[in-house]
């Protein structure tokens, strides 16, 4: 299959890759760029584990082709805090509130909520729950995740 060149900025770093047109964005991130924090849960756009930010909006990276992300700025879970620095406010709230157990859905949860809290900085618990319909979690029963989103929202508001 003929290859296409893709230029993509991920977490502030520019990458060039030659990819098959059928390669999904998540496979590009995981296999070509070794960013394995983004997970593949269903590959049909329901579970949300693969959620990343593309040009500022949350996207299911299993449903987007790598070639569609040509020229885009992508943020993945690895970009939510400095590698040696402290956890970001949402990440820290997840740990405090027991918002994760196995941690497999967590990167997608973090990206969905990062997008959501940007657009709705003062949400109700119900609004958080509606936003989370984009993501499935089999472990937590969601309470810790909703708690974490509420705490992080409050902290982000205080800081800004």
């Amino acid at each position: 299959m003929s290859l296409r060149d893709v230029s993509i900025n991920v977490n502030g770093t520019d990458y060039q890759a030659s990819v098959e047109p059928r390669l999904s964005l998540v496979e590009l991130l995981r296999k070509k760029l070794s960013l394995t924090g983004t997970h593949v849960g269903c590959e049909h756009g329901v579970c949300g584990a693969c959620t990343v930010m593309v040009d500022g909006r949350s996207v299911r990276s299993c449903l987007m082709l790598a070639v569609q992300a040509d020229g885009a700025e992508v943020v993945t879970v690895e970009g939510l805090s400095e590698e040696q620095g402290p956890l970001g406010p949402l990440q820290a709230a997840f740990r405090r509130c027991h918002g994760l157990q196995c941690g497999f859905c967590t990167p997608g949860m973090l990206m969905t909520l990062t997008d959501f809290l940007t657009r709705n900085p003062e949400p109700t618990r119900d609004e958080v729950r509606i936003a989370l319909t984009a993501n499935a979690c089999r472990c937590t029963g969601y309470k810790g995740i909703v708690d974490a989103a509420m705490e992080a929202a409050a902290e982000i508001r205080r800081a800004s």
Partner: protein
Amino acid sequence: MGAKYFGARVERREDEPLLRGKGQFTDDIVLSDALVAVIVRSPWAHARIDSVDVSEAAGMPGVHSIWTMADLPDCLRGRQTPIQVPNAAIRQPHNFPVLADGEATFVGEPVAVVLADSRELGEDAAQMVFVDGVPLPVAADVGTAAEPGAPLMHSSLKDNIAADLVLQFGEDENPFEAAEVVIEETFRQHRGCCQAMECRAVQAQYDALTDQLTVWSAAQAPHMVKNIIVEMLGHDDGKVRVIAPDVGGGFGPKGMVYPEEVLCAALARETGRPVKWTEDRREHFLSTTQERDQIWTMRVAADRDGRLIAVEGDLVHDSGCAAPWGIILPYIAATTVPGPYVIPNYRMRMRSVFTNKPPTTPLRGAGRPQAVFAMERMMDRLADRLGLDPAEVRRRNMIRPDQMPYRMGLIYRDGSPLTYDSGDYPECQRLALAKADWEGFKQRQSAALAEGRYIGIGVANYVEGTGLGPYEGSKARVAADGRIEIASGAAPQGQGQKTILAQIAADAFGVPMEDVDVRVADTGIVPIGIGTFASRVTVNAGSSTHNASKSLRAKVIKFAALRLEVPEADIEIDSRVVRARGTNRSVTLGELRQFANGMPGFTLPEGLEPGLETADWFSPRQATYCNGTHVAEVEVDADTGAVEIRRYVVAHDSGRLVNPMAVDGQIQGGVAHGIGNALFEHMHYDDEAQPVTTTLADYLLPMAPDVPDVEIVHMETPTPLNPLGVKGAGEGGTIPAAACIVAAVEDALRPFGARFSECPLSPQRIVEVICQSKKVA
């Protein structure tokens, strides 16, 4: 040395790497030069396979090799995988081979393996592998498959009955004859499938120089994976290592040892290259074990005060195409039915029945949710019949705390008489009812009804055998830098076991938690073990960690006394330094380790073993029994059949809590799974056993708006059966949830005379029942 960490809401050490995207799940591991395995699966539920034509596929780009049963090494040919939990009561111990061997017995059964340079190229080739088969009659439904003359699941069987046995106790000859009340009902229950967010995944690597075979697998029981690989491949036991890295949820089905694990190991050894296989979600629906269908016919006899005289039943369990976990599921179910109640006479017939569907193995709750559903629905019927409050009927029948330890009369699956060790069931129910304002509900219900809203309440109780043996090992040692290292046979999938074991070890040894490292889920560090299931790890691995840490402390004190030349009583451990009280003499733990390892010519005092290392294999003498009461309050939309869970209360007693935050998480998550079982999750098959719900858009998982914040009341009755007093808390959130929610839905729809004998309840079903009632009216 008090408990500093035990009982504290300690944040989890597992979290930070996972939150940074630095977890290491099986598919994340990169082995250089790895081949990717793609499995060609049977499109038929039952077929004779005449040939597998790989000629076209073999020449496609990136294809390394293609393997059918005929190509596999001798050790795998013509062989079934071993039954993981054998039992003499299995009359037809059928299990499946690693690749279909002339006959396929479920849609999704592995038929061939393509090894390729990438998954994409492997999938391209897999589509060009032509499996030539002749469809055979299908044992599609567990109910009809049990009948004489039903199509056989496999041509080698004489019928589809894997096992047929009876459990019973009680002296009365005919308890039903004289009873004032007799109630009978049949329940059809469905428990769906695993749906861990991480699908299964395996990588295997073979090193010819050392003959070492290393397997990474998203598994709950790496030791069982190792045992079966050793047995099937005939590989030296000391040269097989199985590691479960970060595992993205398990819930039971990852405790099964799968053909893909054996195949990857075998093909890595055959090809000399690493082999990687990652299940996709469709394969998960097709081939990961499920729990699926059970049919229960129940009969209860009681007096007019609602006191139980006898319970009897007939349980038909869907085993699928094999019996990898033997008869564990129906057996656990049959021993769970009596629950917290005094039952003078009990008889349960259970049949485990083969069907042309994936095998069933334990899924969070493991047969208990169905048992509790059958029993608790009967308690609701009894209350209805006698015009009594459902909670009151239950209270009248409960085992009292002064009857503990209570011997029920059955033998549990651990082989010991089923004896409840401790607990106060009436108090637990009372606490749940009080928290849920059970008393005030009638008023709330009438008020809602006056507004045209239908709200209902349900209660359900359970007792769960947890913490099963035979054992789990832990080693404790002082590392070179003076840190304490715990190596445990535990194998977590999100429960936070590294944190919990660190809490236990830090308390027992007497150091800050930060000085304790915990390694788990690797047969290379603890060579024998059992695995994570049956809410057993905190009981078994927790207790062995406690014991090993305590004996390590004793050993450190002995060596320190020798080294510092003071009596043992004068030794104190202060983080990584050991001091002699009242002197300025001290030694670091790292130095003491060197000393204990010995020097040439140095003589150890009699009775002192070298090295600062200890091990313990905690082996409980029987299961512990935790218990709980759930209360759900729901509102049902009579037009759409939608159910909203307004409140959900859990009062439970799982003994002492090591980390209440983790226990709360287990309960909240367990209830979510139970909500799925009550209202959403249905793995549908058609009449030919073709799966029809093979995406997460068809098979509905509970999502955030479906799961309320669970209100939790903890009771802590320590069990006398282990040094920590813990009982296990992984499944109690799930076990009574379906019974409780279906009772609440039924209560809400009393004005329509609704009765439900099944779960899950779909909106369609609810609307159907309401419409029927309107027609009758």
